[in-house]
């Protein structure tokens, strides 16, 4: 199976008044053709910025400091600064170059769905216009062709009376309907990759399920790969074959859905799983939701050791000073925690090393 997207050692930073913020610190991932990958993490863990970096959609003050990205076998960028003396000016040029390169892929090979359908659709342009723009820009489609394609896609997206919708404005549609329009807009070019950045966060629960079903159905119909970014493990459980757990701009654990849900190794994953509401079980005291105490690390001054150390209930002395490496547990399962080191694992069996 060929890889549609490969990200190697991606590092992104933002230059702000307070200093340099590093929201993505060495993230590598691959996405196979037809695969659905879930990227999970709480707010500020770097999920969205990772994908925005790849797409060339970073804000003015954001730069990719290092990393290599290939899309469908084509290299998008390969930024490998030598030494410390790389200047912002150089990175700015790199950014300009790859953003221009990426523009040909955006809206054609890659479709994006965003969080809030209330604000991501332009309020004063018609649905039809907004859906046609990308098609006109990339495929030079005529008005009639655009219209035919749009009608078909809207129908696929489960929108009733699509003809009327084309001439309507976003404010005339309900929230769920708008999200369907946004999805329709993203898939109208039959992209190879669909990036969904928290597509259900702004919707109420019943609509959430509908939208997820829709994405699943569309995936099968047009055969696209999907990257689903979310903070909700419940959302990825039903859709994703593989899951990446992101924290403090680093991958903490990755594996198949089964491995993440049933054999998770990382304390952070454990914390995330405990904070998912489970309606099947009876609500007794022991089944209460357990929040992860504390807040994510300050990425202005990333911690020297493990990013999760301050909130980890298993934290050891070494975690404060040394960063654990990613350790492979199975061919598909890897975890970035000292507790996964075979030599440590044998010690913690008795619980002795826990101080």
């Amino acid at each position, binding site marked *: 199976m060929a890889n549609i997207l490969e990200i190697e050692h991606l590092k992104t930073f933002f230059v702000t008044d307070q200093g340099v913020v590093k929201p993505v610190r060495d993230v590598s991932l691959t996405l196979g053709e037809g695969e659905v990958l879930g990227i999970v993490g709480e707010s500020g863990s770097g999920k969205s910025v990772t994908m925005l970096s790849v*797409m060339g*959609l970073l804000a003015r003050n954001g730069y990719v400091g290092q990393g290599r990205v290939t899309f469908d076998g084509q290299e998008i960028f390969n930024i490998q600064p030598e030494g410390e003396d790389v200047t912002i000016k150089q990175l700015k040029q790199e950014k300009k170059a790859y953003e221009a390169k990426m*523009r*040909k*892929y*955006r*809206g*054609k090979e890659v*479709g*994006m769905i*965003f969080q*809030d359908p209330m*604000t*991501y*659709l*332009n*309020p*004063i*342009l*018609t649905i039809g216009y907004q859906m046609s*723009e*990308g098609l006109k*820009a*990339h495929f030079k489609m005529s008005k009639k062709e655009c219209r035919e394609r749009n009608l078909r896609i809207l129908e696929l997206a489960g929108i009733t009376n699509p003809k009327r919708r084309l001439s309507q*404005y976003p*404010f*005339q549609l309900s929230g769920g309907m708008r999200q369907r329009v*946004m999805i329709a*807009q*993203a898939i109208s070019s039959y992209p190879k990759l669909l990036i969904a950045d928290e597509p259900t966060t702004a919707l109420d629960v019943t609509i959430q399920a509908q939208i997820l079903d829709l994405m699943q159905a569309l995936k099968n119909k047009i055969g696209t790969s999907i990257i689903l970014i979310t903070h909700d493990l419940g959302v990825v459980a039903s859709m994703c074959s593989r899951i990446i757990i992101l924290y403090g701009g680093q991958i903490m654990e990755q594996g198949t859905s089964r491995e993440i849900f049933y054999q998770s190794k990382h304390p952070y994953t454990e914390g995330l799983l405990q904070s998912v509401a489970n309606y099947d079980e009876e609500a007794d005291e022991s089944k209460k939701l357990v929040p992860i105490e504390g807040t994510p690390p300050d990425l202005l001054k990333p911690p020297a050791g493990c990013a999760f150390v301050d909130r980890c209930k298993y934290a050891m002395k070494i975690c404060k000073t040394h960063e654990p490496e990613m350790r492979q547990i199975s061919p598909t399962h890897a975890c970035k925690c000292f507790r996964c080191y075979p030599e440590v694992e044998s010690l913690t069996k008795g619980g002795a090393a826990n101080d």
Partner: protein
Amino acid sequence: MVKYLMKRILMSLLTLFVLITVTFVMVRLVPGGPFDADIAEMTPEAYANLMARYGIDQPLPVQYKMYMQNLFKGDLGESLQYTGVEVAELIGRGLSATLSLTFIAVLVALIIGFGLGIAAALMPNTWVDRLCMAISTIGISLPNYVVAIGLMYLLALKLSLLPVTGLSSPAAYVMPVIALALNPIANLTKLVKTSLIDALNQDYVTMAKSKGLSQVKIVGIHAMKNALLPIVSYVAPMIANLLIGSFVVENMFTIPGIGTMLATSITNRDYTTLSGMIIFYGAGVLVFALLADLAYVFIDPRVKFED
């Protein structure tokens, strides 16, 4: 939408009515009369005849009734200063000078204001941005009569590049247009910059970028169309203000426009001309406000579908 426009038109007519009434009363409350200058050379009988000829001897309510009746027929009355000349004709004489001046000033203000504003918005925190903001700050702080005097002193008296007064040649337009347009340029630059930056930071712009659209389409359609909403509500009164602002500038450059006539009619207590001119200005302001409302309908669909 029809309802929306009808409402605006009715409101405008009501405003115009109030304006006419207030003007009528205030003009006549000013001490002195239209023929006071020549009173020494007239017999009391002649004076009384003159007053009766123009109906000024009547009590105010009667005069008001007569004036409104004539106005309704489209008759602004006869000038009290220039015997036998209709006020409408007087306005017509000054109109071409005033309108051409205002039109050029509006055009210059729009082109330069939008140009500087867009440049500053697309290149924030660069020397371009800082230069535009410097021009804007200067333009906002200088009143047009100061600009006019400064320009006259520098360009006309010291350097003798341009004629000091009148509108006889294209070169003569330069100074009055700058004096008129500088303030709107300054305001427009600031407004266009902030509105456009605001729009560019909206989520729908990210969405537009994610579709791989060109920078021109993103800025020109997605951002600019949204940014236009606050700008339109400034531009309409701006045009009206330029029309009125020409009052000061016309007088300074002695341009034979409506502004100069208005000034003369005040000193002469030319009641009918003064009223007519103010009504003309007022109607101008209202028309542009109405045009702004109309423009909203075309830019923002939410207005169109509002009940």
